[in-house]
């Protein structure tokens, strides 16, 4: 039986990084995720695993430290919250353009602008549709439990290195701050220099005689070269769409109505589903665990046989656009959201569900 420890979602990120052989963390304080770096600094992993932890002068700098570390084939990560992620978007675009693996954690808070420090899911567009410039995608993972925060760090690096692509863990203030029991899987050591050469032969590790120099760049001034590269990225994204979709379903087998929700909203929708079931209404829930790639096929399949779907998000309605694209007119798709750090109750969702579906 693996060890279980009570911890915050943000702490789970930090502990997971240390226990999963991450080489470096570079960050800048911002609420509601400061516990990530605070936990790392308290744990002093440089004395145990040799992990580097550094507080940078800005998010711009921390994401570029990630760029530098990832260029060396190291497992490097950062974390921030919405306004900080906005600052990082330049670097994320460069990382995507240079095809570097890394993990970026966004513990979302309300915006736009300085907004609020309370939880929100209003950075779905930023995370899933780009954020930075140019044709690129991050792989986006949406945790709903402190355990997910722990597990997704390792999963994120696995995907990041498999596809040479940035991975974003899109959490929110609730998941970051809630305390839950987290099962600690057996620890993994950091990669050795030889293992890095094997996992990342493209990395800038110093050019020995006999190999061409390794160059990490996102620059190609020639139009055809750039277009070829964009097509190569598209092929990669298509492969990710084909192989890496992950979602969970709750009572969808016989459902006539389906909620679509991710992260903390999925947990609240699960409770709303239970209330509706008790009332004899056949509700169900699909929770996208990967937001890119989005579970389009599964939502399309459900849309073909239910009376309606409803996207429930802590935003003005962002993921709902992708739900509607996936449903493609097969059933009505409704939306309910709260903003500013306000959270819906299951009862509130039930009430909005009934309004949308003209049910008493």
């Amino acid at each position: 039986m693996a060890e279980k420890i009570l911890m915050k979602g943000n702490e789970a990120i930090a502990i997971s990084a240390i226990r999963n052989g991450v080489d470096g963390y570079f960050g800048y304080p911002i609420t509601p995720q400061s516990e990530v770096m605070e936990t790392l600094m308290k744990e002093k992993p440089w004395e145990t695993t040799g992990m580097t932890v550094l507080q940078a002068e800005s998010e711009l700098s921390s994401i570029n430290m990630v760029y530098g570390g990832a260029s060396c084939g190291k497992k490097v990560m950062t974390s921030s919250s919405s306004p900080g992620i906005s600052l990082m978007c330049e670097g994320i675009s460069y990382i995507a353009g240079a095809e570097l693996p890394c993990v970026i954690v966004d513990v979302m808070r309300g915006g736009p602008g300085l907004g609020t420090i309370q939880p929100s899911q209003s950075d779905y567009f930023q995370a899933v549709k780009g954020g930075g410039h140019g044709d690129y995608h991050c792989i986006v993972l949406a945790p709903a439990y402190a355990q997910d925060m722990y597990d997704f760090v390792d999963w994120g690096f696995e995907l990041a290195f498999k596809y040479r692509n940035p991975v974003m863990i899109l959490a929110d203030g609730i998941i970051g701050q809630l305390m839950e029991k987290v099962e600690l899987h057996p620890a993994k050591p950091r990669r050795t220099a030889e293992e890095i050469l094997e996992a990342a032969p493209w990395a800038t590790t110093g050019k020995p005689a006999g190999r061409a120099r390794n160059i990490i760049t996102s620059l190609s001034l020639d139009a055809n070269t750039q277009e070829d590269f964009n097509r190569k990225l598209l092929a990669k994204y298509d492969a990710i769409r084909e192989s890496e979709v992950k979602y969970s379903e709750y009572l969808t087998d016989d459902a006539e109505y389906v909620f679509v929700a991710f992260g903390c909203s999925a947990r609240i929708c699960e409770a709303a589903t239970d209330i509706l079931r008790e009332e004899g209404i056949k509700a169900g829930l699909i929770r996208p665990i990967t937001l890119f790639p989005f579970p389009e096929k599964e939502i399309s399949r459900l849309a073909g046989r239910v009376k309606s779907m409803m996207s429930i998000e802590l935003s003005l309605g962002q993921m709902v656009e992708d739900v509607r694209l996936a449903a493609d007119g097969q059933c009505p798709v409704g939306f309910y959201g709260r903003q500013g750090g306000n959270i819906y109750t299951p009862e509130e969702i039930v009430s909005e569900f009934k309004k949308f579906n003209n049910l008493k």
Partner: protein
Amino acid sequence: MENQDIMKPENIVYKKPALLTDNVMHYCPGCSHGTVHKLVAEVIEEMGIQDRTIGISPVGCSVFAYNYIDIDWQEAAHGRAPALATAVKRLCPDKYVFTYQGDGDLASIGTAEIIHACSRGENIVVIFINNGIYGMTGGQMAPTTLLGMKTSTTPYGRDPKLNGFPLKITEMLAELDGTAYITRQAVHTAAAARKAKNAIRKGFEYSAKDIGLSFIEIVSTCNSGWKLSPVEANEWMVGHMFAKYPLGDIKDVLK
């Protein structure tokens, strides 16, 4: 003795360093970048550290530096090279890590990154090319542009009321506790280039001593941006740039 008799391999006293690739440089005729690239290549070659050196060149004319020096390179976003270098050196402390940055990059958009890398005392080398102008984008005003100097965004000359004053960032960085060696050099004459090379070598050697950041400014020409011939640009640099940016060591913690 005829020249043909002298041109034998055993009589070679100077040639292109092996670490410079055969790619023709994209720089304009007479550009200081080429000379500085050569000096960096010579230092790496003479120290025998090709397999342990990682160069980082951000946006600017030298963004293509990776085409010319035969080592592993990272190309960074505008101004961010010191952040990359920080991570590389901390994660790979046995490597030699240097950035190669222009004045628009280092002294304008990248001021936060260079100041904090210096302040943290990162054990890296920074080569700072100061030609007082943005070369790659077509000759706009840089933070280091001299007062009165005409550029495409100061067509009537830099006016401090309109455009502020030239930034002597090198002197600023010397004030920071994390810097070990700060110097200002040039490469317009053979004597100056030899001194600049010695400074670059010292920077690389210091970066392995865990004593902080080494910063080598090279006052340079941008004859295309300055709208002068290469030879006239060198003369103008001596007559004008050196007055504001005097050559010599500014700080050396081991002296």
